[in-house]
């Protein structure tokens, strides 16, 4: 049984059908890429997967449990973390504090600014470990707004990883990064790969085709193609296109 099992997800907003019917099964430990043109419904699908949008039809199972229609915090509690296309960090907090406020233990204790500022050593240590994972070991005391764009991206992933998720959803992780930033991010994601299940929306095809185990191509709110990168690259039209370059 796959860790994530999505069947027949349909979403409409009034007259607009955003997702016609999406099926997806992601086994534990897989890196599954989602690609597709703008407006194809990729982010809406993420919103459904993470409980921000309730589907009109269809079901989502997580490790066999039906989680369709659960709110985002309930889904997060079940081990689904996500990063956003638009970054969502606390700019005036340090990198370590940003990770700390996302730690499940810290959140369970509730927000308390007296503690949030200098913190509990246990949480601070845990947050520092996560920062080390994403290559920000020496930037724990830097305020989020003073970090470079690439470091902020890495911090966003650290915040998600701090929740110790089983599933990490990344929405266009390379967006806005230069080629050096993309390389660093690829190295980071490469280290995470296999340790947890990753679902990533991505427009950078080189990034996606070099890292993903399988890719689903979404268009018109449906999965129009799916396969391992080398399988998708067999298509004659793909060979003639820019995608063919990564073969």
């Amino acid at each position, binding site marked *: 049984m796959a860790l994530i099992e999505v069947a027949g997800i349909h979403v*409409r907003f009034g*007259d*607009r*059908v955003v997702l*016609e*019917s999406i099926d997806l099964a992601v086994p534990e430990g897989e890196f599954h890429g989602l690609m*597709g*043109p*703008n*407006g*194809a419904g990729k982010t809406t699908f993420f919103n459904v997967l993470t409980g921000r949008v309730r589907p009109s039809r269809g079901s989502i199972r997580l490790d066999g449990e039906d989680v369709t229609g659960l709110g985002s915090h309930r889904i997060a509690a079940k081990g689904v973390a996500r990063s956003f296309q638009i970054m969502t960090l606390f700019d005036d907090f340090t990198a370590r504090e940003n990770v700390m406020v996302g730690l499940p233990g810290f959140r369970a204790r509730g927000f308390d600014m007296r503690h949030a500022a200098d913190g509990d050593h246990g949480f601070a240590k845990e947050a520092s470990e996560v920062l080390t994972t994403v290559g920000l070991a020496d930037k724990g005391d830097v305020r989020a707004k003073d970090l470079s764009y690439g470091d902020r991206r890495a911090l966003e992933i650290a915040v998600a990883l701090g929740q110790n998720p089983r599933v990490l959803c990344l929405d266009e992780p390379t967006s806005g990064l230069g080629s050096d930033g993309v390389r660093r991010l690829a190295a980071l994601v490469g280290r995470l790969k296999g340790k947890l299940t990753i679902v990533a929306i991505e427009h950078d095809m080189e990034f996606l085709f070099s890292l993903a185990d399988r890719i689903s*191509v979404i*268009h*018109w*709110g*449906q999965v*129009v*193609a799916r396969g391992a990168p080398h399988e*998708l690259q067999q*298509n*004659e*039209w*793909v060979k*003639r*296109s*820019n*995608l*063919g370059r990564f073969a």
Partner: protein
Amino acid sequence: MASPLLVLDHVRKVYTRGRLVRHPTFTLKADLEIDQPSIIGVVGPNGAGKTTLFEMMTGSNTPSSGHVYVAGTDIHRVKYRERDRLAIHYHQSYQVRRFRKLVPSVLLEKSPTSAPMVHLFDEPQFNLQDGYIGFMLDFFRKLRAEGRLVVLCLHPTATWHLEVLAEIAEQYLLVVDGGVTRHPDFAALTNQARFRNYLGAEMTRAADALCAGRRAVPS
């Protein structure tokens, strides 16, 4: 025997001008029956009636006379919200679900099918660089293999558009001045003077080259 996938039975759509004395300004006439799953290419100049034809097929616009049957069901008798379970209309990269509602939905019937049998792709945005075109064409083949009817409308403005049509479509509908004619293959379509007029000289040469078995563009 199973009902034909799509029947346009003496469908007429007349657009008129004037309140007291109505002058017809445009008439679409369509009579056709498609029994088997297939991929159909639709071509024709702007204003020839392609969109109106699609609207008739999806039930989003009411015919002046005649009937449209999708898998045996008169789509114009089905509840508006359920018509997309029979026929579905994709315009460029979006999906269209707007219906001209003349009859209250409660008086209409439920759709007998849950997944659409007819898929209409109205000028899907193709480009050669990103490779999606290959995935889309495979998607059309998959739908057909699942027993669906795929209708693809394309404006050939580049030679590879013609390649796409010639590769994917098994038959063609040519829409000109509100008239719809059916052609069994790309060569038969290319022989039509009205199609050649619509294409223009350069595209006609490319179409002839494709028919002669030569690739239109060196790859």
